[in-house]
């Protein structure tokens, strides 16, 4: 679809104000919010990711693309969240200690909210203790951890261990680029999902 290609290009070029307009227009034209997200926004970030890997673009270009993505998501967010939310469950989400990446985590949060889950976002650089405390305070069903770096993914094990130690009744979900099913099994986490959509589905399944 033409408008989706336009949105994708605008994200890649980092044109935050223009992409907000384009997303608003697409919504007015009746394009489904989820479609805009997947084919307009996420596809754009994949392309930027590949270009970055091939050294066709560098950090500054990725930064402005991410900024444009976030601007677009602001416009899209109310349309992604289900209407008349009866909370199906509560998820505590965060990026693990030592890691500041949050784009993926924010997408997962949005997809989960779209499924009717309540999501408590602890932000980035979250210690295991903070995860547990938030889970207790919010009577959460799930703790969801994100990590983008090979150096920080081992923090997830600390979260799993602390959950076991404190005997809190929560499931631990893990995700992020270097994470694998094998890693999830090794550290004893309850669930691994490769992307935001499957994370939302898995979380919903745990809560029902």
């Amino acid at each position: 679809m033409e408008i989706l290609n336009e949105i994708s290009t605008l994200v890649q070029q980092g044109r935050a104000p223009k992409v907000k307009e384009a997303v608003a227009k697409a919504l007015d034209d009746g394009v489904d919010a989820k479609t805009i997200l997947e084919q307009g926004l996420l596809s754009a970030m994949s392309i930027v990711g590949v270009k970055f890997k091939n050294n066709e673009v560098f950090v500054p270009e990725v930064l402005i693309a991410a900024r444009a993505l976030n601007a677009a998501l602001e416009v899209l967010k109310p349309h992604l969240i289900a209407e008349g939310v009866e909370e199906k469950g509560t998820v505590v989400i965060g990026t693990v200690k030592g890691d500041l990446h949050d784009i993926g985590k924010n997408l997962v949060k949005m997809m989960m909210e779209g499924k009717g889950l309540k999501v408590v976002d602890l932000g980035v650089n979250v210690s295991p203790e903070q995860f547990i405390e938030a889970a207790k305070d919010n009577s959460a069903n799930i703790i969801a951890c994100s990590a983008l770096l090979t150096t920080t993914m081992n923090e997830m094990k600390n979260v799993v261990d602390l959950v076991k130690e404190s005997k809190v009744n929560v499931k631990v979900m893990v995700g992020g680029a270097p994470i694998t099913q094998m890693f999830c099994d090794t550290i004893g986490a309850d669930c691994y999902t490769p992307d935001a959509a499957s994370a939302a589905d898995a979380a919903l399944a745990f809560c029902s």
Partner: protein
Amino acid sequence: MKDELVKSAQEQLEHLAGACGIGCTLAEFNVQGVMPPAFCLGCPMRGGACRAERTHLYGCYEADRWQGQYIYYCPLGYIFIVAAFYDDVRDPYRRYGLAGPIDMSNADEPGVALPEGFAGAAPPRRNTTQVNDIASLLTTLGRYFGRVDPQAADDRDSGQAQLQNLLYEVSDEMRDSDEASYPISAERELMQMISLGDKSGSQELLNKLMGHIFFHSGADLEVIKARVIELIVLLSRASIDGGADVDKIIWQNNTYITDVQSFHSLEALSSWLTQVMHRFISYVFDFAEIKHADVLYKALKYIRQNYEKRLTLEEVAAQVYLSKSYLSKIFNDEMNCSFTNYINSLRIEKSKTLLLDSSADIIEIALEVGFDDQSYFTKVFKKQVGVAPGRFRETRGLI
């Protein structure tokens, strides 16, 4: 950093600031926070949404982690660049070059809004390419003043970045396929490359193997260390095959095997392993010691890329602008073997891999690696390896 050096670094940063029109300062590390740029001192966000000292401290921490450079947004939306001006990240007095603020909005867009009542001038606009340019200069300045060895820095950069990339590629592969199998043929290929002194090809293969080792081990560093030791032993044997001194290599292995135990992170381990591999390769063929190094290097590179075709001495000589006889002479003098023998060695090595890893007919393999006919291939193979190709395949290369 010594005082004279600090003064000199500050001068150069002023030059950079003058050339780019962007504020540049030299900041000293401090766990409480680093001295922010002048702009931040007057910024109304400071003391509210932004603790400038800590915002820029986090930038410095990230630069520590990412090979000495980090580019980031401040809470207001301006870009800052940090570059390491040190060599040892453990130095508690280390310094950083800090450039910014920069408004990186597109030229035809309104730009970052200045906060209410802010009296100062708006930060200058630069596009993403220009930000990259400034970042590159700042980083290089940082390496100069931090007395960082350029070759080591380049190796670290490309090695670690490649590793991260390869880990993601491998993880994609694994996600798509049901079983992940260790690329054992890559190991053999790597050993070949080591014995031939091929630095860049071997780097690629090593990273691929490291990526797979990482995933096969479920990120358990102890398991990874054991696999790394296996690799080191293999590489050392390949280096010996390539002509390195047996005793020297075996003595080295002892040290390496002990060193492996001391690592706590995958990145540090893989970076170290790369250095080890380069050392193995240098024992095979030290270009620094021979004359005609440049010509031979180019000739060998051409040969390695084209030996599978019909390759003549004339053709290679033409590539390096020498006469056929002169190239032949240099070859014999420096490589201690004739051109023909060298090419045949390469072909035989390649054919060994094909014999063991594929079920192609021997005639096909002979043609594939560049021989004209099977009988000549068989003759050369038997002379070099000791058995005929068929027998080699039957016995899986073990006699």
